[in-house]
């Protein structure tokens, strides 16, 4: 009993070091993980797809893919997992950790880059280092997937225009026959330079268990 506890405490400590979550947060997320996986060791795509609240999300597929993407595990591997364990789950989640007041400027910059990388990987589905027009169209298409046929048209148009925009900002003097094959990470970073990320890519990981307090909160 005691040994088991120290072992799990040890494990949590490792995860804390790796992901930056506090032990309480890890405990909560672990609970959530077990809930999602039906107390299995690993989680599969089907587990995530079953989450009811996710059903309305237009980019659900991309998000779920991101969880199974090896690139998001910081281990220089590519490809996709079939199933992920808790540690991988946490690693993906750690992209969304908010900075604290203590976070230094360099750390913030690093976090920002990491988040952008996450986003980039999400769009760059074939992992060739560029977001091609086809890939980007898919992104926009999915975003607008609830709008029916018009959405499809608009998606195409918007993706095209956005791509052209990237091309024109990054390669201002293209010859007529030049070919812009896609957004590289550098370009991606460059073009999203002005975007406020601070309030955009964080979520609050509560120290307390939210599963028990699902109701009774109003929108504010």
């Amino acid at each position, binding site marked *: 009993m005691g040994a088991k506890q120290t072992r799990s405490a040890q494990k949590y400590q490792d995860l804390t070091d790796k992901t930056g979550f506090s032990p309480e947060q890890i405990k909560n997320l672990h609970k959530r993980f077990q809930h999602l996986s039906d107390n299995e060791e690993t989680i599969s795509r089907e587990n995530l797809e079953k989450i009811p609240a996710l059903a309305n999300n237009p980019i659900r597929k991309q998000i779920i893919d991101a969880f199974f993407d090896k690139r998001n595990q910081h281990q220089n591997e590519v490809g996709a997992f079939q199933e992920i364990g808790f540690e991988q789950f946490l690693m993906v*989640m750690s992209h969304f950790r908010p900075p604290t007041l203590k976070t230094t400027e360099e750390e913030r910059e690093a976090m920002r880059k990491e988040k952008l990388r996450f986003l980039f990987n999400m769009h760059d589905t074939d992992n060739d280092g560029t977001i091609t027009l086809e890939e980007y169209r898919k992104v*926009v298409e999915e975003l607008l997937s609830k709008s029916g046929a018009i959405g499809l*048209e608009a998606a195409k148009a*918007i993706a095209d225009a956005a*791509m052209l925009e990237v091309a024109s900002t990054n390669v201002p003097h293209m010859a007529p026959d030049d070919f*812009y094959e896609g957004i590289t990470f550098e370009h991606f970073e460059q073009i999203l330079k002005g975007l406020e990320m601070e309030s955009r890519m964080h979520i*609050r990981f509560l120290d307390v268990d939210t599963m028990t307090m699902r109701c009774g909160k109003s*929108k504010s």
Partner: protein
Amino acid sequence: DWTLWRTTFGPRAASALTGHESNHSEHEHGSSLSGIPIVTFKWHHVETPYLVALFILVSFLAKLVIEANHHVTNIIPESALLICFGFILGGIIWGADKVQTFTLTPTVFFFYLLPQVILDAGYSMPNKLFFSNMGAILVYAVIGTCWNAASLGLSLWGCHMGGAMGDLDIGLLQYLLFGSLIAAVDPVAVIAVFEQVHVNEVLFIMVFGESLLNDGVTVVLFNVFDAFVSLGGAKINAVEIIKGIISFFVVAFGGSLVGFVFGLLISLLTRCTKNIQIIEPGFVFVLGYLAYLTAEMLSLSAILSIVFCGMCCQKYINANMDENSVNTVRYAMKVFANGSETIIFVFLGISAIDKTLWVWNTGFILLTLLFVIVYRFIGVFFLTWILNKFRLVPLEVIDQVIMSYGGLRGAVAYGLAMMLDENKIKEKNLMVCTTLIVVYFTVIIQGITMKPLVTWLKVRRAAVSELTLIEKVQNKVFDHMLVAIEDISGQIGHNYMRDKWNYFEEKWMSKVLMKPSARKNRDRLFKVFHQLNLKDAMSYVAEGERRGSLEFIRNDHAYIDFKKKFDDDYYEEVMPDIMADMSEDHGEMSSGRDPVPSVSLEMHEQNMKAVRDSEDVNTHHLLQQHLYRGRKQHRHRYSRSHFDVNKDEGEVQEVFQRTMRSRLESFKSAKMGVAPPKSLSKHPKKEQQQKMSNGKSLDKTRSYYSGDEDFEFSEGDSASGFNPSYNSMPMRVTYRAGAGIENLGFMPDLDSGPSVQLPPWLEDSSSVVPSQRAQVQLPWTPSSLRRLAPLRTSTRSTDSFMMADAPPNAQQIDLPPPPSPPASPPPPPPPHHHM
């Protein structure tokens, strides 16, 4: 409420009115004696409204002069300058009358000047930003204001006890009353100053939101302490205090509720005002004003009421009303708000020049000033310290400094001070005087130093540049991603809540409050395309006008130039607009276009509209000059319920007929050399192939038929995006886009492929230049804007060709719009690459 204000200008007006009546009767009496006078000078008859109008004129002129000097307003904010102008004006009046006849009475201020400023603030509130910071705003507004009031009152009382102010007849309760009236940050002053320093949007919404919401607190505190003062210290017991606390919640939430109800009412009303489009915008103002008055009547917070009224209805009325009406509302809102803001500041200045008001008490005044500033800092820093423990993105120290420093007091405090009862509070004049000094100090001194401070502290500013398209897309991705991550991790956060709210809003509220038609186009992709096309067409026509209607058609070089130019225009102007709309569609009030100025009082007129208007003017000028001279085309000017121009069936028909005739001639001359696009609209599949072959054949035949302007024209036309969406967009995709895009062979003419879809009046032969222009521009007159889509589709069928022989009828124009545009051809990447 404008007219209301003019006619009943405060209590002074009432007395003046009765006075003039007696004068008037006397005058009549006198005149009957000496026969009929040819001209009489009846100053008293018009005195009050005349003075009011004159005063408004002078204030506006002052603003005009002030705004003409940019180098001055860059340093000193406009509000401060207006107050200074008020000093001068007040001095003149004082010199002339020896008594201050113009003072800002609470009635005038609270009933006729304040509502429109606040309504505008609510109407243009960036809702998403506001609600995502709601918690913090409430904390500042409620706790912060209470803290300010209590600490100021108690400290002043303490100093009084300590003997710092000499002999004053002010008790503890009166100090607290004074504290409560001066505690609140003033929305008018805050907007005026912060609008000119573009701080980041979170900071702005914090100060601005606080200034709006703390009114509820101020009013309650003021009323409670006012009642306490009347009761006298002895009768105050726990029950009264508890009643006071309860009344706070009732006043605040009751006021918000009244506003909410009226907001829903407006939304519902605008659902069914289709037939009275002219006065449709009036509902918004009248009901907004009624919301204010109703809350006031029920002794609830009127400001909260009108704020929430504006916030609730903005989305629905924008969707429900006609585009023109929406613009009218926006514009009129700014006219009223900006106008009364100007008047308020001038009034504040004038009010100072009144000898009876000035009671100097160095200790009281200086201590008040000191405490106001110090406690504001303490309050903000303490509350932020607590809030930062909970906030996802903590507020930085610099932001806190600006927030504290931005605690400007303004006309609301002055209005409340004027409402004090002289019989109960002996030192009323001292309090008013002190309030004025605090107001001047904060608005002028802090206003002037705000900008340098912001620069010096390197406060994060609002992004000046427009968001690029990709950024907007990414923002959407972020939003959805955060919701998804929260869902997966089982956390309930802002995103989760917002998502749920959006869902609820979409499912229920929109159903009730929006017109079915508006709901259908609501994820305004339709509108996106509408705007897109509008813009395309406009730049096309403008370009055509500039180059002389058809030059660019004959001249390949010019055509390419034009396209280049067009590309640029497009990226600079169109897309941000569209995306701003897009983000609105998804249920969040977009603050994307320009975060801060969306709340600002200046009317940032949309370029697009301006362009369109000038286009309209052009069109009408041309029409009048070349086509319809001598007709009664001025008819509409006399109609009060009819604003549409050129809706005359006859005119439309004539344009159509002329077009068709000349079109037919050129068509015959072309001898059907090009495969006539029969049965296009009926078989969309075929259509596509047809288009392709068309494009090719056009390509081949082009040189042979180069004399035929018809085809040339349509080529230039479609290439420049005058076509429906699916043509206009791909045209812009002038880069070579990855795999999947072939057919480079006939690229220049793929664009021209869909030329058959042009409405006949566009495909006119260009022999008659003026009429050509007129026809090109015709669809952009306001009345026919709506018909654009139907026209395009209806004429896609070849019927129009055939019908050219028969008398064409304008009926065709009214065909219903297509459910959706047919699938587009693969986006044609033309070889010209302009980047």
